[in-house]
């Protein structure tokens, strides 16, 4: 082992030690001796601390990229839910036939937004949905449950607590079950779904798996996997029209652009769709972003009368 390797090892050892919630006072004294004995130790520790603080989270981001949602699983999830929705609608229709005038409000209601900043929806129980651009939700309030389906795009939810009527949101294969809380769901490319919780707690379920997210936690669901990701400041300010891409596939960035673009954006080229993108983008101005893509990533962007297509 070279001297450099030895110092690097020691630095990693100390970074691990110093980042524990509790450490032995004897360790503290030993760390101080190690740090004060050599300037190279201090440099190595500084570098290792940065690898720990910034490098490891990036590593986790990179790792998540090759993941592609298995299509079959998504379809199964949809089938199941379609059946339930259909059954409930049928039940509601039967009741209407009996002649109760209040029933129609139990029927699912669809809200949709065009490209742009989106719109706010106030629900009867005081809950609020902030719908993103080019997004759609279907809301069904029943006496025993409140269910929402995010069929397209993204939305933030501020849910009024009601223990007798659980509030759940379906987004593709993922189901988010809510207590009184505020959170944001984003349907990404390839069937992936992002969930960020700003207040309270939610339970995220996909297939048989589940994970409970508390305030300040975020997860990304792809296929049948739920992966924790670090919540970023920008996630809280998603309505600003900015999107910070941290090693995300181009298809996700395009998904964001579609929320604001008046023209359809086509991304038929798989190689281009998989390109990993880093940068801070004003997605509420799709033209500017596409221009930046051209110069920074060498992508071809062709605009016709009715659509924009992107390729390698």
């Amino acid at each position, binding site marked *: 082992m070279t001297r450099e*390797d030895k110092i*690097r*090892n020691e*630095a*990693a*050892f100390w*970074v*691990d030690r*110093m980042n*524990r*919630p509790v*450490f*032995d*006072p004897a*360790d*503290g*004294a030993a*760390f*101080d001796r190690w*740090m*004060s004995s050599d*300037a190279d130790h*201090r*440099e190595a*520790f*500084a*570098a*290792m*601390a*940065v*690898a*720990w*603080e*910034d*490098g*490891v*989270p*990036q*590593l*986790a981001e*990179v*790792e998540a990229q090759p993941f592609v949602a298995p299509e079959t699983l998504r379809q199964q999830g949809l089938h199941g839910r379609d059946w339930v929705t259909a059954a409930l609608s049928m039940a509601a229709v039967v009741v209407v036939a009996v002649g109760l005038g209040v029933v129609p409000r139990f029927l699912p209601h669809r809200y949709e937004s065009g490209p742009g900043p989106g719109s706010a929806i106030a629900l009867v129980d005081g809950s609020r949905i902030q719908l993103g651009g080019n997004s759609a939700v279907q809301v069904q309030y029943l006496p025993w449950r409140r269910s929402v389906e995010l069929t397209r795009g993204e939305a933030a939810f501020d849910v009024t607590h009601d223990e007798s009527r659980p509030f759940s949101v379906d987004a593709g294969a993922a189901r988010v079950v809510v207590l009184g809380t505020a959170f944001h769901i984003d349907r990404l490319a390839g069937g992936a779904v992002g969930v960020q919780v700003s207040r309270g707690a939610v339970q995220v379920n996909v297939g048989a798996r589940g994970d409970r997210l508390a305030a300040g936690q975020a997860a990304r669901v792809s296929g049948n996997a739920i992966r*924790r*990701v*670090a919540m970023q400041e920008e996630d809280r*300010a998603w309505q*600003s029209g900015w999107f910070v891409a941290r*090693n995300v596939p181009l298809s996700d960035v395009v998904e964001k652009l579609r929320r604001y673009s008046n023209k359809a954006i086509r991304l038929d080229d798989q190689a281009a769709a998989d390109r*990993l993108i*880093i*940068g*801070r*983008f*004003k997605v509420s101005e799709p033209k*500017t972003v596409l221009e*930046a893509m051209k*110069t*920074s*990533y060498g992508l071809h962007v062709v605009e016709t009368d009715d659509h924009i297509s992107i390729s390698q």
Partner: protein
Amino acid sequence: MRHAIVAYVVRKGHSRDAAEDVAQESLTKLLRYARQGRPASLYGLALKIAANSLIDLIRGETRFGAPVDDTFPCEAPLPDTVVADRQQLRLLSVALEHIPPLRRAVLVRRRVENQSHARIAAEMGLSVAAVEKHVVRGLCDLRKAMEDRGSRDRITS
């Protein structure tokens, strides 16, 4: 002590001037804390204070600068930063290949999910000592990959 803080702040991507300022401020605070009772580690506390000062610095809440406007007109991404980031991404991807999957999983659980050594050990069927070893070796692997990038794109301003 000053050197430890300056080295850390510079590695975090800040200018030498900012690093000197953060070091000065941190040492002043450290003296105040140390008077209340000797901490387990002076260096540990000093770096913790420096990290907090850096967060304030980024938020623009200190004397170092005015608050950052939420809507500052930054036409991101700048092509040069994109190139640097892509390079970094490639290197991290390479690093990934060199870190065994188990070790990666341990490292990510510890750092990103903030799980304790004991919990990781229990859930992954490892001993606590093995978890420790994976964290230390994983960090070394990652650090090596970051070093290979060389000093050419080290941002110091």
